[in-house]
């Protein structure tokens, strides 16, 4: 087991290195740079562009240097000093900007994740044990809506409906008076009033697919002979269900934890943009559009690192949970 983990960890290093290069190149691919975007923005409102200011900013941001030099600076600063560089749009360190939003994003994402699990596991089990019943059909129907409608559309529809009925626009995580305020109980309370909407909307699409997976896995297990045997021997239905089939059906959930980790950090970008959430998703999109390269690059690097780590974690978890995988690895080693 230790050797297995060790090897997997070593594999990560070249992978991350390659990732960082690809990210940096991809970000540089669109034409122009941050300052061409900045000039364009000024021109669009009809304001004058000062050539000297642009020249000074080019120098300040080192945009006149060759790309490999820019990359070298960026990556060495990250590795040696943990400095992710400056965001051009905000003129502030990237770490500070991302840090500000990270906690909020993670809180919302974890809440969403819990919501998804709490809703979908019981429904999945119910759907499987009551296959083809009216309840199964009704829940499946709702689930399919969640899968087929994109989250941002649901968000827009809900927002518009609420507006049409009450005349208020439900957006953001805080009421205006709390946005710039320091943290307090009142602010947290205010956030709790707003957080349910993104939680339900983002959760809905996740819920649907989880329900389907859970239902399918359960159905497979319920037809196994050991279930019939146990039932024949008079094991109570509830105990029978939770002792084996449910545990086995959980496997796919564990193996997808690896993909969950990055979404916890990046959030659901589209929905967050529509709902105007102060999370990292909209910030990533905005930075890509404005070619704010260190901000965009760092967010991407952090999320991809988390994906890699998440995959590793879920592999380890699976190996620990499922002896078949563990023994398979040992057999390979031997």
């Amino acid at each position, binding site marked *: 087991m230790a050797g297995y983990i060790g090897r997997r960890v070593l594999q990560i290093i070249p992978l991350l290195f390659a990732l960082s290069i690809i990210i940096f190149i991809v970000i540089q691919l*669109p*034409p*122009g740079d941050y300052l*061409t*975007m*900045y*000039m*364009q*923005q*000024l*021109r*669009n*409102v*009809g*304001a*004058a562009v*000062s*050539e*000297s*200011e642009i*020249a*000074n*900013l080019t*120098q*300040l941001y080192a945009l006149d240097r060759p790309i490999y030099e820019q990359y070298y600076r960026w990556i060495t600063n990250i590795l040696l000093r943990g400095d992710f560089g*400056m965001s051009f*749009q*905000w*003129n*502030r*360190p990237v770490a500070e*900007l991302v840090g*500000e*939003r990270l906690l909020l994003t993670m809180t919302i994402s974890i809440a969403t994740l819990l919501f998804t699990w709490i809703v979908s596991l019981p429904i999945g089990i119910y759907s499987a044990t009551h296959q083809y019943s009216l309840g199964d059909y009704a829940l499946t129907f709702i689930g399919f809506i969640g899968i087929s409608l994109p989250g941002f559309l649901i968000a*827009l529809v809900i*927002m*518009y409906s609420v*507006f049409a009925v009450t*005349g*208020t*626009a439900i*957006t*953001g995580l805080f009421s*205006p008076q709390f*946005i*710039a305020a320091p943290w307090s109980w009142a602010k947290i309370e205010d956030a709790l009033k707003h957080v349910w909407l993104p939680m339900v909307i983002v959760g809905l699409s996740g819920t649907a697919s989880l329900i389907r997976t859970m239902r399918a896995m359960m159905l497979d297990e319920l037809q196994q002979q050991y279930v019939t045997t146990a039932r024949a021997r008079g094991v109570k239905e509830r105990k029978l269900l939770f002792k084996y089939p449910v545990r086995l059906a959980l496997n796919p959930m564990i193996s997808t934890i690896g993909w969950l980790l990055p979404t916890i950090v990046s959030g659901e970008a589209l929905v967050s*943009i*529509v*709902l*105007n959430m*102060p999370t990292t998703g*909209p*910030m990533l*999109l*905005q930075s890509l559009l*404005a*070619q704010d390269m260190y901000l965009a690059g760092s967010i991407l690097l952090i999320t991809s690192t988390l994906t890699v780590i998440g995959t590793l974690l879920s592999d380890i978890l699976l190996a620990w949970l499922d002896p078949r995988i563990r023994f398979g690895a040992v057999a390979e080693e031997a």
Partner: protein
Amino acid sequence: MLADLVKAGKLPPVDQRLPVTPKIANEMPASQLKPEIGQYGGFIRTLTPSVGQDTDVFVLCNEPLINTPGILGEEVTPNICEAYEVSPDQKTFTFKLRKGLKWSDGASVTTEDVRYAFEDVLQNPELTKAFPLWLRTASKFDGQPAKATIIDDVTFKLDFAEPYGGFLLVLAVQSWRNYAEFLKPSAYLKKFHKKYAKPEELDAAMKAENVTEWVGLYTLKDRSFLGGGFANKQLLGMPTLHPWVIKTVTPQLTTFERNPYYFKVDAAGNQLPYIDTIQSFYVADVEVIDLKNMAGECDFARSNPKLIKLPLYKENEAKGGYKMRLGRLHATVIDVFLNLTYKDETWRKVVQDKRFRQALNMAIDRAEIIDTIWYGYAKPSTIIPGKLDIAGANKLLDEMGLDKKDADGFRLGPDGKTFVVPFETGAQRADQIPTLELLVAFWKKIGIKTTVKKIDGSLWSQRIAAGEHQATIFWSHTPLWYMGDLGQPYWATLWQQWWTSGGKQGEEPPADVKAFFTKISQISAVPPEQGRKAYDEVRKMMNDNIYYLVPVENMMQPMLANVKLANVSDSEDVFAIGSNFSGEQFFYKK
């Protein structure tokens, strides 16, 4: 809000904060707004879809040295300065600053601030790599830079080598000019200037901002928040002359608080602005901005509302507690440009032929554009008028030799291939693509094949700069005569480059275009009355040559303001942006 601070002894009383002769606000001409005497207090919320920039706040706060009410360019009045004088030869401009005028931190505004701006910034080769064009004679690339002379504490003059009569309007409104390039809070900025700051203090400041060179530090500190950078924390503490001063910066919200030393008063002598704070909210999605507008979560919106949503705005007026007004756009925004200098022989041969542009113009059904895209809130253009005449247009094209057609009925070019007008647009406005779709249909009737491609905005601007586009749609400021903006970068790209670089880049334009360019530069070289005449001639030349197409003009745009907000002009004759300018006089009716 300020009275309490005065009581607490934190602020001198108002008569010590105002200059000896304060400016009586006149952002709007009397014909467009009769301002009421307002009451203090309240806040204005605005919404912006861009990080670190809010066009509405930008215009609300803007303060030029001299101003032109309603941005009409008809009358020029002193604004930051108390008086100005132009020498008879139009070469020397003398300005007198207001005695007792103060920066927002309470420091006096004197001619030292002008001297500092010219000598230590504009003439410092490290900070200024290119002397601003507009401060050169007649805004010409090879014009002599202005020479600043300080006469006394409040008086200074600018000398130009040649007559520059249009300089007043250049100062007043061109490019929404602010004072920041020639009037700088020197006492504050010297702390970041190598020549004045103590080396150890400069080092500490550089370390705090994480930069390695003083030029970088200075660039971060000496920026106007109007210049698109108000997300920058570095700007907190920068003294200004604006009605509101930047107070807090967060990714979602930027707030501005009234400047206690603001130099304007209302007719009764009360210090402006009436409104205490401005809150600019960042909202990423433009549809959500409209939703918030309609929900009344915004008190003033000029730059975001779109004509296309007019029925929705109107329907929700009562619910959202706002009033929708219509104002004129200060540009013609669906101008159609063919790049006459695109490097392709066939293309040039066709589009440089005036008859071709004439034919395209004749095939445009202006009434349909006005009905479908502007809901009737626009008029056929007078600068490039044209009657719908398909037969006439066909005749012109046949005469040109474009009389052969392909299997689909599209005309063949001189090279024997189907002639295509390929539009590229950055879709900067929602009405651009619908207009182009109409053009495709109009021009199909005269056998001209037209295609439309939407490309990324930054790619678009790069291609324009390099003259790689063949046809595009954009705006030009034809209603503002003093701007001298006749879309030169879009239809005459290489010729314009030749013109501004003194023949070093681009291509030499033909004689008629040279004459046109010369006339345009005259607009800003002569005093306003003559400038208007020069502009009339420019219009005539445009009309004769149809350098580009301006299908409609006098377009209106909706503007939303809190229903209780007073001193917003109700006249439909105003430029919407002019109302935006008069924000210091807004107040809430109880």
